[in-house]
């Protein structure tokens, strides 16, 4: 990466990971949708600190508002209350300092891999690091798509698409990367490879990351810090520091520590998921029916 300089050195010498990296803070953020009589409170008073140079993974029961959280952090939507701060200044709209890697893939189908990757810098005309084309080609090689530079997204496999999208985000040199269930929809093998690849890139310069997922194994394998959200309206239910050594290896996932982290997180997730299940079940009259049949 082009801004790898000081941060990269810090990482390799084992000093403060956060040096030169950005930090995000969410203070009492809430968000809901709909009119008064059918208002749906999705996020309720959520506070969260995303430490500089850390890989913060957010997990939560399905439908708890993870995507809403991503939209707020990226600036696609604004919170009803509370503030989101990136290095102390408030987030007010979308910006290249907060790049999102979307669910499935959001590469423009009408652009080749190369065109997709240079889209942002070309649009703004603000590329600083010398020759944009050379830099893009370097990045394409790095994500292993050298032979697919001039192919269209539909010609790439699922894993290749994710790597291309990763490159498209990275070339904008964001201060924070927001990964919104980026590996969803990949088969188990590609998913594992993508996780390793993603970690390799992260561990290179430790750019601050928020990684949203609903897969607990993925979460523990990647995270420095695991944030477990509650059932809707989502709040931070608990934060678990994952003290597995880096660079990570899949073998670590069968260690007792990893197992402990997993069962700790699973217990809370299960609790929250049950709440959401019984909420929706009683809302649809399910429970009443059961009560009547005497079950």
């Amino acid at each position, binding site marked *: 990466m082009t801004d790898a300089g000081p941060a990269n050195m810090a990482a390799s010498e084992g000093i403060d990971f956060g040096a030169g990296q950005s930090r995000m803070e969410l203070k009492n953020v809430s968000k809901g949708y709909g009119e008064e009589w059918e208002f749906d409170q999705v996020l309720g008073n959520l506070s969260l600190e995303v430490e500089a140079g850390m890989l913060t993974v957010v997990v939560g029961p399905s439908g708890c508002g993870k995507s809403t959280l991503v939209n707020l952090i990226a600036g*696609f939507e604004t919170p009803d209350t509370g503030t989101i701060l990136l290095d102390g200044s408030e987030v007010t709209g979308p910006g290249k300092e907060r790049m999102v890697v979307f669910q499935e893939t959001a590469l423009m189908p009408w652009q080749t891999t190369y065109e997709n990757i240079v889209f942002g810098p070309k649009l703004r005309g603000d590329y600083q690091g010398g020759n944009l084309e050379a830099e893009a080609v370097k990045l394409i090689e790095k994500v292993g798509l050298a032979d697919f530079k001039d192919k269209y997204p539909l010609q790439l496999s699922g894993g290749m698409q994710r790597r291309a999208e990763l490159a498209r985000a990275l070339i904008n040199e964001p201060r924070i990367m927001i990964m919104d269930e980026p590996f969803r929809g990949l088969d188990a093998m590609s998913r594992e490879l993508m996780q390793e690849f993603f970690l390799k890139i992260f561990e290179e310069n430790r750019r601050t990351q928020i990684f949203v997922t609903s897969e607990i194994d993925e979460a523990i394998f990647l995270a420095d810090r695991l944030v477990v959200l509650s059932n809707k309206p989502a709040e931070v239910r608990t934060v678990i520091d994952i003290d597995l050594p880096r660079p990570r290896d899949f073998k670590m996932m069968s260690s007792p520590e990893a197992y402990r982290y997993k069962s700790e997180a699973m217990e809370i997730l299960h609790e929250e998921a049950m709440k959401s299940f019984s909420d929706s079940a009683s809302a649809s009259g399910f429970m009443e029916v059961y009560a009547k049949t005497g079950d």
Partner: protein
Amino acid sequence: MTEMVQSGHDGPVVVRRSRLKKALSNVKFWRGLIAICVFLGLWEIGSRWESWFGVAFPYVGLIPAPSAVGLAATEVVTKIGYWTSWVDSFKRVFVGFMAAMILGIPFGLALAVNKYFRGIFFPPFEILRPIPPLAWVPASLIFWPTNEMSIAFVTFLGAFFTIVINVLGGARAIDVRYLRAAQSMGATQWDLFYKIILPGTLPSIFTGAAVGMGITWEVVLAAEMISGGGTQAGGGLGFFIWNSFMGGSLEQVVVGMISIGIAGYLSSSAVRALGDYFMPWRRLF
């Protein structure tokens, strides 16, 4: 039939020639060719049933045999009037279709991107849209000073509504993540329009164009028959068929019908070729 196409329209045939080798080695091509031959054979037998077996084959017996049609065609193609019919119909289709594209695409895009514009123009559009183009013929004959203009207008209507509806639907269906990704990367409203909405709508534009082109041919033919094109405007293929019918030449009617089939095929091939040209990412597989 093939000879006719070649002598009349060199342009498209050149494109087809270059694909000829590919086609000849393709099973699908031979299957299609055999199907057409079998169809023609059955038709021939059906029409000649009476003279061969003494009993009229129901329905098909009344239609001139393909051999008779072929014979009529060789006679017809030597007449300049037949070719001017082609040119006249093509001109009308082209004018109506281009007008529909030029007005329909921006109109559809404006409906898609601006809610005030949509609020004002969509309701009247939706009331006018279900009116079949041919229902406009009497009114436009009165309204427009020449027959030619009213035919062009009705042709335009045929394609216009279809194109607008497709453009509107396509532009509204663009994945919001493309827009958001572009916004994150610093796209302005104009960037979003030119770099996301426009290319994202292209497939729908060409779908609308292909369907609109088909409707244009239908409308042109009907309008030519109704307006009796012979007086002020040139005849066109519609009038050619009508005229042959009035003159009692059923063979020529069939020649006219097949001509329209070929004309329609050439037009939609042109639309497809343009689509392939403008959307390289759509011709991958």
